[in-house]
């Protein structure tokens, strides 16, 4: 379990603060929100297939490792969606429309995740003037999950090393691990707060907008225009 958590959280650390493509994070987040909203609103599958085609073309340009991660995530989401809608599909109440929409939206999220680092993503969210408290909480949560997952893994390893084979008491100790983890989290949060205050934290969460305009910023902008045009031509008219 802890390994799975670590694997998921390691995604946030993967970029090491660097973006795979130097694009304006605000435009990227805007494009993601547009894709998710317009896909959900669309009644015409042609629009959904157009977005899917654009996403597939972007996937073709991605690095193999990033492509594999994206495909695994999208396939898992698609399988879950099929499982949920299976009774309706068997009763011919619905077709694969929901699954295709799930594939489109999850692919969009994965592409954003693979393109931007976590700090850029925070910058992108601040582009929409979200409350500082929300951004600070989100930033700290992600950093803490990573820390706490490592601690939990160490405790689980220590427990495993105490005996060989399957023991029922090991399962019973899960509650103890979670309890210790909670206490550690409390302690760490106090330490973090003290460290922040020592470094002149006055409750203001600052995000520096150092992004300089470059040609690649045009990519999300052009895609946004294309997607909006497609939606208005195919759905509104």
């Amino acid at each position: 379990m802890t390994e799975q958590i670590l694997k998921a959280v390691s995604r946030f650390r993967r970029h090491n603060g660097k973006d795979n493509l130097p694009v304006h994070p605000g435009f990227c987040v805007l494009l993601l929100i547009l894709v998710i909203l317009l896909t959900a609103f669309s009644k015409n599958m042609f629009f959904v297939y157009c977005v899917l085609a654009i996403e597939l073309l972007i996937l073709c340009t991605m690095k193999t490792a990033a492509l594999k991660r994206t495909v695994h995530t999208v396939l898992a989401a698609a399988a879950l969606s099929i499982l949920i809608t299976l009774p309706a599909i068997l009763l011919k109440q619905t077709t694969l429309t929901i699954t295709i929409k799930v594939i489109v939206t999850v692919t969009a999220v994965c592409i954003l995740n693979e393109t931007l680092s976590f700090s850029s993503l925070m910058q992108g969210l601040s582009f929409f003037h979200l409350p500082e408290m929300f951004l600070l909480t989100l930033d700290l949560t992600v950093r803490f999950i990573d820390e706490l997952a490592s601690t939990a893994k160490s405790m689980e390893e220590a427990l495993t090393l105490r005996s060989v084979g399957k023991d029922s008491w090991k399962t019973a100790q899960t509650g103890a691990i979670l309890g210790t983890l909670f206490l550690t989290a409390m302690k760490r949060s106090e330490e973090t707060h003290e460290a922040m205050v020592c470094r002149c934290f006055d409750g203001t969460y600052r995000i520096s907008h150092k992004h300089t305009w470059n040609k690649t910023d045009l990519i999300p902008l052009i895609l946004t225009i294309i997607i909006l045009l497609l939606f208005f031509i195919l759905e509104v008219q």
Partner: protein
Amino acid sequence: MHIPDNYLSPETCAITTAVMIPVWAYSIHKVKKELPDKQIPMIGAGAAFSFTAMMFNIPMPGGTTGHAIGGTLTAILLGPEAACLAVTIALFLQAVLFGDGGILSFGANCFNMAFVLPFIGYYTQKILKRIIKNENISIGIGSYLGINAAALCAAIEFGIQPLLFNNAYCPYDLSVSIPAMMIPHLTVFGLAEIIFTCGVYAFIKKTAPEITEQKADSTPKPVIALLVLLIILTPLGLLAEGTAWGEWGIDEMEALGYSMKDFSFPAIMPDYTLNGLPDQAAYILSAVIGVSLCLIIFRLFKKEAEI
């Protein structure tokens, strides 16, 4: 040449699929063993070329249509085993996403177009290369024999149905199916396959010689440019109206007075179309989705360090 469902008996479908299983296993083993890891995405490019080639329908007198397949091209560039896998993936996407070719008859379609065509095309050009010095002639003859051998297999599969299963499936016997399939393939479609194979091979040899020398790390830009051009041109395939011989729908067969068993698989974009939309736009969209998926699927098999 895409045999739809209901034309072949389940027994015929089962036998052809059973034949294909060791062929697929051998091809995977051979590709893993002999093809360098960095070349694996090139199989995707081969599948993409095959996918687009099959979208260019050519009209024939009598209202039928046909197309090139491009299996020999991939076989010459990467080996017949890689071509077998490339055409298999292209056929799978066509059957599942676009309803082009049946689900039950997938094994039969793969036997004709992913096994017979690339292997005969490849080995013919390989033998001829030793006799004839002109590379284009040996490649042309190889691709021509490959597509005709595949068409003959499809014709035999169609033709034996009324002999073995009392008109429950394809109603035309060998005396009808062989001329109906072979005359267009020996003339127009064979020529189309020669033009496609020799044309694309010459283009690749000139612009991206690293592929013909099997040294390409990734799909070169000229190849991508050619694929984009082919995608843009795919609506030309819509100029040919009518259905290829042996690819009629159940409704078309009933109009001819034949009743057939009705097994149908609901494809996502049947016949590369979407209701209420221009066929040209839907055709280009299908080509983009199909080509992208071909390129993506084979890249998933490339080993690369986690980044």
